């Protein structure tokens, strides 16, 4: 069914279709319309689930962690400082190997306070053991939410579905809401191998020693490091798993085919812009303008950011002359994390090759600073020449310092 709705409603409809059983949420802008919609669906009887209006984001994720441990499909959503307040629980959910899904409606982090969009919130949670998927439009928000549950439950790793605050969360766009019967076919009910059960008592997330240890039957069991290594292995296994899920999704709904990256006019491109989220669609306009001038440039958006599909990204990008990475977040004291990650992926695969693309890094749009198309045009155009800017320092677009 085609509807015109906001990105937050797209996410809420995805959560409803996924037959989520427990929702816990705490209000934070710009996530609120998403969780308000869920409370409306649940209280109005359109969705069968428990909705817990908690007293903090830390508790929101605590409830999802416990509910998933007790066998229920669970969901929460947050933004910015709410996500940061969850940080301890985020790591806990990954370590406990719980397949819960959280929407991160991207917003800049304080201080100073900002309610507007950038990616610093979810990027700051990059290394927590969660899968991170970035959506570029409303259709991708609802589709990715459904795929996220399938992926999480396949590899038993939690998933963040990230989308831009305001730019996507509060704008209205047409998108297709999948049919309930088809979703049920795509996403069967959550059936964990173990959930808390008095008939089968177990002590979960116990203190675990540095070394391996025998259990009471004399069998060897993992130490902390083996458990953490398995998280890394299963994160990497999520890369092929996402491809299978995307193919299954496409077979049922007819949409998909770009599980990891979404290239636009990149086949013959000398230069490729790279970014996360809706900015990559904004860059398509700029690419079209430059193409009209005869500059061979394309844009690629990264959909799966963690686990980082390094091989796929390096293969897609290594043949170009230059890569221009536009980011709404950075690792303070160095550079944008996507730029670092792309360089790392390229280095491992091109260090002995005669050609390696240059990589330059633009930082823009922090705290909702307007990203003006002429600024993007100028930056991309001057980067698409052999004599353009080089080096690893970050170049900031749109700064307005004055004497």
């Amino acid at each position, binding site marked *: 069914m085609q509807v015109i709705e906001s990105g937050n409603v797209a996410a809420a409809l995805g959560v409803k279709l996924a037959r989520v059983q427990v929702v816990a949420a705490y209000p934070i802008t710009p996530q609120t319309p998403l969780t308000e919609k869920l409370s409306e669906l649940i209280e109005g009887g359109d969705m069968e689930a428990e909705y817990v209006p908690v007293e903090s984001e830390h*508790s929101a994720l605590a409830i999802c962690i416990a509910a998933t441990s007790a066998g229920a499909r669970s969901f929460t959503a947050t933004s910015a400082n709410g996500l940061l307040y969850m940080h301890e629980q985020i790591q806990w959910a990954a370590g406990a190997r719980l397949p819960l899904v959280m929407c991160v409606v991207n917003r800049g982090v304080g201080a100073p306070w900002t309610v507007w969009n950038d990616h610093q919130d979810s990027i700051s949670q990059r290394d927590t053991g969660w899968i991170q998927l970035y959506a570029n439009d409303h259709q991708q928000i609802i589709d990715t939410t459904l795929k996220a549950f399938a992926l999480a439950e396949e590899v038993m790793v939690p998933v963040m579905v990230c989308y831009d605050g305001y730019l996507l969360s509060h704008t209205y766009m047409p998108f297709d809401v999948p049919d309930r019967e088809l979703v049920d076919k795509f996403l069967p009910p959550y059936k964990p191998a173990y959930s808390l059960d008095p008939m089968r008592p177990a002590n979960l997330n116990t203190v675990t020693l540095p070394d391996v240890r025998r259990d009471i039957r004399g069998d060897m069991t993992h130490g902390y490091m083996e458990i953490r290594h398995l998280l890394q292995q299963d994160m990497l296994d999520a890369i092929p798993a996402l491809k299978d899920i995307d193919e299954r999704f496409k077979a049922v709904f007819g949409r998909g085919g770009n599980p990891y990256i979404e290239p636009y006019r990149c086949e013959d491109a000398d230069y490729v812009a790279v970014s996360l989220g809706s900015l990559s669609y904004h860059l398509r306009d700029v690419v079209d303008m430059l193409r009209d001038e005869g500059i061979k440039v394309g844009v690629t958006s990264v959909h799966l950011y963690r686990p980082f599909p390094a091989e796929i990204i390096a293969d897609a990008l290594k043949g170009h002359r230059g890569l221009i990475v536009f980011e709404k977040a950075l690792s303070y004291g160095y550079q944008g994390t996507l730029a670092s990650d792309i360089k790392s992926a390229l280095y491992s695969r091109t260090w002995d090759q005669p050609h390696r693309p240059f990589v330059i890094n633009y930082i823009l749009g922090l705290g909702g600073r307007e990203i003006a198309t002429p600024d993007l045009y100028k930056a991309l155009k001057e980067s698409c020449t052999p004599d353009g800017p080089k080096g690893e320092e970050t170049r900031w677009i749109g700064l307005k310092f004055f004497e």
Partner: protein
Amino acid sequence: MQVKTNILSLPEEELVHPGNRACAGCALGIAYRIGLKALGPETIIVVPPSCLTVLQGLYPVAATKIPSLNVTFASTAAAATGVLAALKAQGKEGINVVGWAGDGGTSDIGLQSLSGACERGDNFLYVCYDNEGYMNTGVQRSGTTPKGAITANTPYKGKLQQKKDVSAIIAAHGIEYVATTSAAYPLDLYDKFKKALSFGGVKYIHIHIPCPPGWGFAPQYAVKVGKLAVETGLFELSEIEHGQLRHTGASLKLLEKRKLLPVRDYFRAQGRFNALPDAEIEKIQENVTKRWEGYFESLDDIE
């Protein structure tokens, strides 16, 4: 409903294995064993980092025969809500959900999530075992450490501030049942657990837990020290049922006999109060006497 359990009518089934990792003489061992007898095997327990985490054992060995979810320090009550929500969503009934945290995990870092759950009226039992400090991390002061107690981070003068009255804070949420009890009175504890399960919403039980290494007494005296706390009137066995306070067990007997032991007997039985001067003990005695005289008077009013 007031059931009186005696030592012969306690269930024989043990849900805590012998040989767990509690310290010698730990009163939590008593409270946990008796508490689980009251709760029975159809129970899911939520445990934050605390001495109980250690008692329950190191992976892959567990000392308890009920499913247990270890959670982050601040999230005991929220996690209990999560278990409850999942059971409800799956139509599973007849399972007791219990959060069991220490005094730091309750009165300090866990107070916000507990308050949230009380306000929402989530249907689980919350147990705070109060050994009056962060014992698991090596005896640091907590919100419930009493005034004058030497701890690892109040090393010379002892704690300068008063003990936080957690059960009064929780009772102020208007929940149906709040109880205080002590590991030194296992039958009082057992009856309160049983009774708590008959109420809706969050039920709160606060257990006084003497701690031999943390308080500075020999392991064989945990029950003796726990009894002294009650018999001196410093710690009260009580219930707040639908807002009505009443004393129970040994505290009720004190009320009837109108005779308290001197608080000095309690303080001088433990090393942690060595820096507490006699003058300070006198002051505490005056406060305790005054408080109990208030109870006696209100009893006179009723009679």
